[in-house]
């Protein structure tokens, strides 16, 4: 066999690359930092349509991307607050886009059908998308639910401006003293820099698929 670049690629590089890509999806150690451009996606919404940041018309100034799910009690505690965020900020150009990246084979509560049920029960006013391959959670570096990424539109790009918690009290909405996401979006709407662009929060770890489950 003649050794050309093509043969080298075929015999060495391609298998190596394939092997690298086959490593199981574990919790990402990378992911976005504030200031990074967030990749777009095309994920199935509960109404069957495919939603991307580019084609989602309410996302005129940016988007509040929230990794969330059905089963996690912390995510459940935030459901009404997430809905309220959308009602307030979608008219202002920053709609909520919720993404469920959990392995629904491991957690049946987080299946597509159950997502549809929950959205109907709670009257969700925002897209609730299924990230079946978990690629989007991996790209963003989402670790838990809920986990928020506030994005600001700059031309065709969506830049990460805030990462973290919705507010500072997961259990008691009435006892919240810092509404981190609202403050961040308000500052962006005012053309100001985000004063607190990163916070930490308690949540349920995202349920990653294991290699054997694929």
């Amino acid at each position: 066999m003649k050794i050309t670049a093509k043969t080298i690629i075929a015999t060495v590089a391609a298998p190596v690359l394939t092997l690298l890509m086959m490593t199981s999806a574990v919790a990402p150690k990378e992911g976005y930092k504030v200031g990074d451009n967030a990749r777009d996606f095309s994920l199935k919404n509960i109404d069957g349509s495919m939603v991307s940041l580019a084609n989602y018309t309410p996302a005129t100034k940016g988007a509040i991307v929230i990794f969330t799910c059905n089963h996690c009690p912390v995510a459940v505690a935030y459901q009404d607050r997430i809905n309220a965020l959308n009602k307030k900020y979608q008219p202002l150009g920053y709609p909520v886009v919720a993404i469920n990246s959990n392995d629904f084979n491991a957690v049946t509560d987080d299946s597509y059908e159950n997502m549809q049920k929950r959205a109907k029960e709670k009257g969700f006013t925002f897209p609730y998308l299924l990230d079946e391959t978990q690629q989007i959670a991996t790209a963003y570096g989402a670790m838990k639910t809920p986990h928020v990424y506030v994005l600001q539109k700059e031309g065709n790009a969506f830049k990460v401006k805030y990462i973290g918690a919705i507010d500072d009290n997961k259990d008691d909405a009435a006892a919240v003293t810092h509404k981190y996401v609202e403050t961040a979006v308000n500052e962006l709407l005012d053309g100001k820099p985000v004063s607190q662009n990163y916070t930490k929060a308690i949540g349920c770890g995202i349920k990653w698929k294991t290699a054997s489950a694929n």
Partner: protein
Amino acid sequence: MKQYGTIFGRYYMLKHFILILAIAFVGKVSAQQNVKMVAFDQVKELMNRNTDTTYVINFWATWCNPCVHELPNFLKLDSINKNNKVKVYLVSLDAPKDIETRLKPFVKKKNIQCPVWLLQGPDSWIDNVDSSWDGTIPSTLVINNKLKMRQFTQKELSMEALNNMVSPFVSKNR
């Protein structure tokens, strides 16, 4: 019951009955005494204690499956290290409203003897435990201020991994 037939007998019957009630009551109360609601100040105080005891502080919740899965390892660690100056504290992030309906029944069912502290919000204390912690549970802090030793991890621990984390503290304490 013949012995209770007389007046003295009835007195003793009442006395025994009250005694049994008292024991049952104390038993019930003490079973819950290890569970209490705290603010972060108390956790901070624990982390800053300057005794030669090694504190193993596990952050968990009844709703967190990996947390519940690794819990027996902490209970075992606590029981086998009674003479090694190692004390386990279980800091729960369950919702405060669930303390009676969810947390206490869980503690009773699993026969957990260590202190179980239900931590109330606000949630801004996460960095104060460890700057590397992003808030995902389970997570565990092992600390001994007299020995100036400290280890933090934010993942589920097998019995072996937990022992490996704690044994340097124990051997240095000998």
